[in-house]
């Protein structure tokens, strides 16, 4: 459904390299993209996959690749290049058990930090995390929307359990695709490849190969794309890379809230674990407990406004995720105030509803 969503969003270029559990996206794109007039290609490694995507995106095509942790590790230098050059693209990162080769056929949610905190300089990369097949489709549309709208790489952070489980999807549950494309340079003035009217907005795009001379560089640059060191203009361009994301964080926030206004406890989960969490919430409520639930689909930028709403009456927060160190819990910590924060963490298998129920009961006791 990630591939279906990408096709519906207008993706016309895909380069892939086999890796479980992301190979199905690769195979679907190889099969379906040519029929839609696009190009899907097998790359000789993951570095090439993402470089090919950047090259195609520089020519104006919506581009995507799909990988898992080990392949993502190889892509990070190129991801940073896309970030610096404001090149839109989507990487579907289907998590599996790490570290290293880890468990190819075992699910995990251990690449949250690796997806978000992988750029030197520490810039925000939008990250979306689906929990169901239908959400994979919806989030793929979002990923392309924001990649294009903000000229940025976007990570679609799925996992083996979401990516390789077949399930029934009702057509009517799928959002209608909209085609958003990066703003194009309309002419009428000299073209500044990295020029912006305000730091919150993105430069107009002109494709490599078009009538307007384009200068692209991954080095620190001014608005013309000239390599410069710490000039005020260069620093302004660098600050803009973060400000354009921060300024649209509220618009980018997608959450599935299920709040009980009287509850003092908030359970928060994302990706596949949100499924077990929803079941646990229903079971606890059937027992008479008051419990709120929040599932962020946008992991980064952290949906602050929605989080604040969910936290308003709450003194205990539980975060359920399939990793040992509580990666998203740690990322949320600055926004949770003095509330008690409890992690529900595990590796090597799905966190079950009863494990979550036990943790919630213990926290409430």
């Amino acid at each position, binding site marked *: 459904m990630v591939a279906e969503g990408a096709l519906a969003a207008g993706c016309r270029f895909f380069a892939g390299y086999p890796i479980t559990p992301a190979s199905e996206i690769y195979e679907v794109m190889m099969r379906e993209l040519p029929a839609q007039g*696009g190009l899907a290609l097998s790359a000789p490694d993951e570095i090439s996959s993402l470089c090919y995507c950047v090259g195609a995106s520089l020519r104006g095509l919506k581009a995507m690749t799909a990988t898992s942790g080990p392949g993502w590790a190889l892509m990070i230098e190129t991801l940073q290049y896309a970030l610096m050059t404001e090149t839109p693209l989507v990487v579907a990162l289907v998590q599996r058990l790490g570290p290293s080769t880890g468990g190819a056929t075992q699910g995990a949610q251990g690449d949250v930090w690796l997806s978000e905190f992988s750029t030197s300089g520490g810039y925000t990369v939008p990250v979306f995390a689906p929990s169901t097949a239908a959400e994979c489709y919806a989030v793929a549309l979002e990923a392309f929307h924001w990649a294009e709208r903000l000229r940025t790489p976007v990570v679609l952070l799925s996992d083996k359990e979401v990516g*390789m489980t077949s399930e*029934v999807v009702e057509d009517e549950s799928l959002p209608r695709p909209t085609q958003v494309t990066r703003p194009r340079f309309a002419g009428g003035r000299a073209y500044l490849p990295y020029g912006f009217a305000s730091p919150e907005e993105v430069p107009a795009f002109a494709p*490599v190969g078009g009538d307007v001379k384009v200068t692209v560089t991954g080095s620190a640059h001014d608005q013309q794309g000239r390599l410069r060191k710490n000039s005020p203009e260069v620093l302004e361009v660098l600050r803009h890379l973060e400000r354009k994301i921060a300024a649209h964080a509220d618009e980018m926030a997608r959450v599935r809230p299920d709040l009980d206004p009287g509850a003092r406890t908030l359970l928060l989960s994302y990706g596949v674990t949100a499924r077990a969490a929803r079941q646990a919430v229903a079971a606890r409520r059937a027992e008479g407990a008051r419990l709120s639930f929040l599932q962020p689909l946008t992991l980064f930028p952290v949906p602050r406004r929605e989080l604040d709403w969910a936290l308003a009456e709450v003194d205990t927060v539980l975060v359920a995720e399939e990793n040992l160190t509580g990666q998203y819990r740690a990322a949320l910590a600055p926004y949770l105030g003095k509330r008690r924060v409890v992690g529900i963490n595990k590796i090597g298998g799905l966190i079950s509803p009863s494990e979550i129920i036990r943790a919630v009961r213990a926290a409430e006791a």
Partner: protein
Amino acid sequence: MAEKPSLYLAPEAALPYCRGCGHALVVRHLSQALERLKLPPRSVVLATDIGCVGLADSLFPYLHTVHTTHGRSTAFATGMALAEAVLEPTGLKPVVMIGDGGAMIGLLHLVHAAQLNVDITVLVHNNFLFGMTGGQHSAFTPEGFVTATTPAGNWTPPLDLVTLLGAARAGFLARQYATDAALAEVIADAIAYPGFALVEVFELCTAYGTRWNRLTGSSLKELVAQQGLEMGRRSTRPERPAFLDLYRQQQAGREKKAPAAEVPPLTTRAALDRELRLVVAGSAGERVQSAASLFCRAALAAGLYVTEKNDNPVTQGTGFSLAEICLSPRPIEYTGLESPDVVIVASADGWKELAANGTFDRCRAGTLLVLDEDLLEKFPAAARLGGRRLPLPLRGRATPAGAALAGLAAWLALDPVLPAAAWESALAALPEERRAPLQQALRLGRELAESAPATPS
């Protein structure tokens, strides 16, 4: 005398290279090559990356320029060239300028671009070392050559890039000196070539190469000859179709794919009013996951929500194969098997995996275990498991390849969670030639159920 302004290259004074550096010669030859071809500046993109040669992008103010990451400019250029297959063709000519360091770290990009025969031209500026970072050696450094990292002389042989890319079926390969009068012509021919073209240019690094080695223009030629590297045009295969031509042929020959047949929904809905979780386990290659998928489609036809997830060893074709399935009249959240309602085991491989992954430990008194009857003998522990057991001659009667499906059919005959017509609906979505063996396994499974004891023990 005033310099004639070039359509391509910045004025001579702007060249940032050390006195005597070969890079300056190559950029001049490139500019002459573009003039020779009369290419409009906007139809060329220069891809450069890290290294002194990477400064070239700022020297061609009218071309598109893309300054990339170390050694990767070949791959970025390949992506730009591939996009021609999707866009209205513009005839864009990507020209990649890398050094020997970039060619080393980006070797696979060169190999793949050559295999694809994408329309890019790569100029490798080979001065045998990393100049920008202080003169360290590369994979292209000759034997005996002194660099910052081989102070006693390099002791590994240099890579013969042209021969290597010949093995990758590159269409156009040449090896020249930066001082060759013919270099502009060779570069022009490389750019004009409609597929992958690479020109390796030997040159001097006057900051390090000539400082640490007795190296002059003429001794460079001796050095190259000592290394057994042949000069000149090495491979031109005009007959090799370029990527775009091949791709268009492929696209034209692509058959319109018939849409996948749909599973016709039934008017009779399943009577299931609760969630039901089952696991089907057997051996790889014995159609366990196919049986599970058929069952899931049957459940879908009967109006149920279904999830299915499969597992097998990484080798795919040996060992166990299993599928975990949830059925529900309502959307399914958790897809794991906290406690299975039904376990179907078609072989010893399946049994061992369920024992190893803890499925048997999670069986309750109400769990129904449908298993091949031989397993009771092979695994005496089976008799002590919680839940009810229904041993059937699945493998003996329905063959190993039909055992899993027969097990599912037997269970459904005893506990009709789905209407019988649901199987027919699921089969209708399959090509006709695949249906007969499945129908046979389903029939045998139902027969086994009829002769089974009324209450499983």
